[in-house]
């Protein structure tokens, strides 16, 4: 039960990345997001992924990153499989090889690889940001750039509530199984949600009384304990992030030779092995996941 929680939260550490203020990191992640959606060029996406892996190394967060990626990677990989037979790409499609009703297309492979690259690259950057930033600093920074306090507060509380509800659900499920509950399907698990929801409602009621008892909702000015300081180096990183995004974006718009969808070709053997291994990774992941759920 304990292993089921994916650590999408800060990993304490002392790396240079941990020391950077949240805003520059957010700017870079956002820049990567924009660039990844602007281009399908495998070289650019590959560079982003490499940079992301390099940052993971610098931040010394390989272990938690792997735990997240074990879950997400198969999901990303499946895009290669799906795209190769049904590309999200303007026709005409050039078939490479076919088996009965299925045909693998040149554009499909290209599109699949680039989609995988986009998702993987973006997630890497986002995860590095999340894992090297204290959530409160992140929220404090978001508040600085205009996110309302109440929304921020709700987000914080929700973030805390997820692992608690996960744990609560685990306990309720154990209690049910201890009473010989049959089956593991959705229908069997559904009654377990009743205690979890009742518990959550009770928790929220109690929380609101407790918060009010701590002057929450006072009319006066609010102050903030977390004070995120931006040092000159943070500004430099922030500005360079913005500049890099603009420069790369401009390059992508202007340089048409970056579109490799026709020039980058795949041999039938390579295509088949890519598609099959993508399918295998995904199915084995799903099988392991189902097996784990049944076993507990």
């Amino acid at each position, binding site marked *: 039960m304990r292993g089921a929680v994916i650590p999408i939260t800060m990993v304490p550490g002392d790396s240079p990345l941990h020391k950077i203020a949240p805003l520059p990191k957010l700017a870079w992640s956002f820049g990567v997001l924009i660039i990844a959606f602007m281009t399908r060029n495998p070289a650019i996406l590959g560079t982003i992924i490499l940079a992301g892996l390099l940052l993971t190394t610098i931040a010394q967060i390989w272990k938690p990153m792997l735990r997240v990626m074990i879950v997400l990677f198969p999901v990303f990989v499946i895009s290669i499989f799906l795209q190769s037979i049904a590309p999200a790409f303007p026709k005409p499609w050039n078939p490479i090889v076919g088996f009965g009703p299925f045909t693998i297309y040149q554009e499909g492979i290209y599109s699949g690889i680039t989609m995988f690259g986009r998702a993987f690259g973006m997630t890497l950057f986002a995860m590095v940001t999340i894992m090297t930033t204290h959530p409160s600093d992140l929220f404090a920074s978001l508040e600085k750039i205009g996110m309302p306090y109440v929304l921020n507060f709700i987000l*914080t509380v929700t973030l*805390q509530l997820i692992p608690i509800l996960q744990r609560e659900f685990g306990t309720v499920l154990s209690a049910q199984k201890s009473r010989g509950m049959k089956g593991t399907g959705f229908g069997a698990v559904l009654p377990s949600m009743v205690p979890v929801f009742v518990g959550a409602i009770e928790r929220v009621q109690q*929380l609101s009384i407790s918060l009010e008892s*701590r002057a929450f909702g006072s009319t*006066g*000015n609010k102050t903030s*304990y977390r004070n995120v300081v931006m040092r000159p180096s943070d500004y430099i990183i922030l500005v360079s992030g913005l500049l890099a995004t603009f420069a790369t974006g401009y390059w992508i718009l202007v340089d048409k030779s970056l579109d490799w969808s026709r020039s980058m070709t795949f041999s039938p053997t390579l295509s088949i092995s890519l598609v099959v291994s993508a399918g295998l990774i995904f199915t084995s992941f799903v099988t392991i996941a189902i097996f784990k759920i049944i076993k507990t």
Partner: protein
Amino acid sequence: MAGESLLPPLPNYGYKNMAKKKPVIEFRNLTFSYQLQEIPALKNINLTIYEGEYVAILGLNGAGKTTLQLCINGVIPNMIFGDFEGDVLVNGLNTQEYPTREMAKIVGMVFDNPEFQLTQTSVAEEVALGLENLGIPTVEMHPIIEDALETVGLDGLQERSPFALSGGQQQRLAIASALAMKPQIFVMDEPTSNIDPIGKEEVIAVAAKLNKEKHMTVILAEHEVEVIAQFADHVIVIHEGEIILDGTPHEVFAQVEKLEKIGLRVPQVTEFAYRLEKEYGVKVKEYPIKIDEAEQFAADTFKK
């Protein structure tokens, strides 16, 4: 600066001058029924609590302990509605006229489930939350937070997640969070009922410290009568919404039969002395309630 307060500034009483006891909480003919409930949860409550007292509230589950405590900081009737008759005055202020968030500066609350009171991602921020709400400038927060965490023995854990703490630590964090707002009165609703023995000891010790060293008025609901006997100087027994006993621990626990009749018990040493008297005809001058008193009682009674 701080947000505009609806409250008049508090007079600064010298705690050393305790001879003149000043009432801090007064219940005047309070009757309260929750919405949609016919039977009142509290009936005709008249009660005065004086500054610096350590008050224990004793009663069965559902007797009205929590309801009584929620009236002190105005959660009832301001947040939880119902049929509210009579008055509750805290520091002379009528709770019906001041929202709970204003009362927070006078009354600190701690509830039975520590986890249901915590919201933040670090211990320091949990304590800071109340201060932020009061609009205390950031620079002034740090010493207050340090001080509150030190009082409850959580210094050094500032950056820890509240949810990674033990039950006892969480409950002490909840106390620190209320303490930072510098209340005069601390209301604790069965704060030890969800934690292990170490945690229990820690929380009870902190409550005693707030009373003895910080001279705060402490109001504690608790089932363990031995703990009450050890620390409280004023015991209130509630049964079916009514106060049926109100006095010093010695006065209250001397009513062994009355308490047992409604399903409550007295400290074990008190019951021991009571039964020595009733069943063996041993003369008992005063029932012991604390362990030291019991040892003395045994020494006086059983001279060889």
